[in-house]
């Protein structure tokens, strides 16, 4: 009997489909998106560090560029990603050890609130420097 196996339609992207799904699914999708972003950043960061190999002038030039408000704005986005991924990661680790499983949604809300507050404080600090 031939069957329709429409898993193959959107196999690898199913995790992104949060339509009509609950908070836990949003947390999962958000964690992946930030995760992918951070991997990309990690390698960019490593490439940038190669400037250290080119000596003082190259690195110090980069430092000036990095202090421009545009780059600082990108830093805020980066920080947002790190906060969400990091704190949500702690939530996943906790639940994985059987801690707070019943409160996973509340934990996610807490993660987002803490992230938002920290980001706000950090943003002010970043732009004051």
């Amino acid at each position, binding site marked *: 009997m031939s069957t329709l196996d429409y898993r193959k339609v959107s196999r690898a992207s199913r995790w992104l489909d949060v339509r009509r799904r609950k908070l836990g*699914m949003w947390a999962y999708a958000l964690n992946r998106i930030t995760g992918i972003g951070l991997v990309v950043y990690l390698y960019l960061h490593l490439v940038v560090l190669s400037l250290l190999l080119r000596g003082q002038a190259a690195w110090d030039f980069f430092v000036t560029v990095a202090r421009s408000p545009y780059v600082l704005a990108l830093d805020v986005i980066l920080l947002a990603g790190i906060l969400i991924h990091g704190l949500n990661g702690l939530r996943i680790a906790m639940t994985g050890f059987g801690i707070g499983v019943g409160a996973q949604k509340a934990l996610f809300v807490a993660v987002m609130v803490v992230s938002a507050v920290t980001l706000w404080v950090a943003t002010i600090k970043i732009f004051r420097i």
Partner: protein
Amino acid sequence: MNMVKVPLQIFRYKPGQAPRYDTFMVEIPDTSHVIDAIDTVWAIHDRSLAFRRACHHSSCGSCAIRINGVEKLPCVTRVTDVWGGHDPLRLEPLRNFPVVSDLVVDVTGLFQRMSAADMSMICEAEAFLPFTVDTFAVAGLDPKLVELPENFSRFSRFEKCIECGICVSACPTMAADEKFLGPAGLAAIHQARKKSNDPVKVEHLLGLADGEHGVWRCHSAFECTEACPQAVDPAGKIMALRRELIARRFSKMMGK
């Protein structure tokens, strides 16, 4: 009894043909459940509509489908609770199963997973009512401890899990990984492990869950627990298994 006219948009697939959606207008009492609407389509409009049903009261688990994209048991879902009153009510088969025909999916994979856990359908019941404390709270009733009758050593119960496949359909990891044991399968392993006193069997059950496609594959989206119509809490069971497996690994490392 007020009658309402409800448009149903039903996923149709027959082997060898392209899938499509058919729209039917059914007239049903406003107190109907979604399964009654599907029954009406079958009885009046189209006998070739393939769907499952049996108990009509959330006990057999056969009728599970997606209603407007969300996994539900149509037998206990009132039409008025899911239908906005204008747009057609969209009925589709469960995801993450091969579709055999229309709303009927091949649940072989699910049943194999349940068999692997060797979970029996009958369990020992706690000697108190109720089955779910929450519903009792809603009704304002007290759960009471029950004295077992003289000739009883225990009460028996059917398991909470009705093997409907809703958690499998809701699970984002299940969508990607065909080999994943899945929420139902892992919850079954947990349940069988809880029932068993035999250390060899417990070891085997934990071993089943301890693989790349076992408990570690879960991405903690908690969709299974959200969707489960029987409060089985598969995600909670997966987390409990993780905890036990980690504890076991550490105690082995400590040389026990």
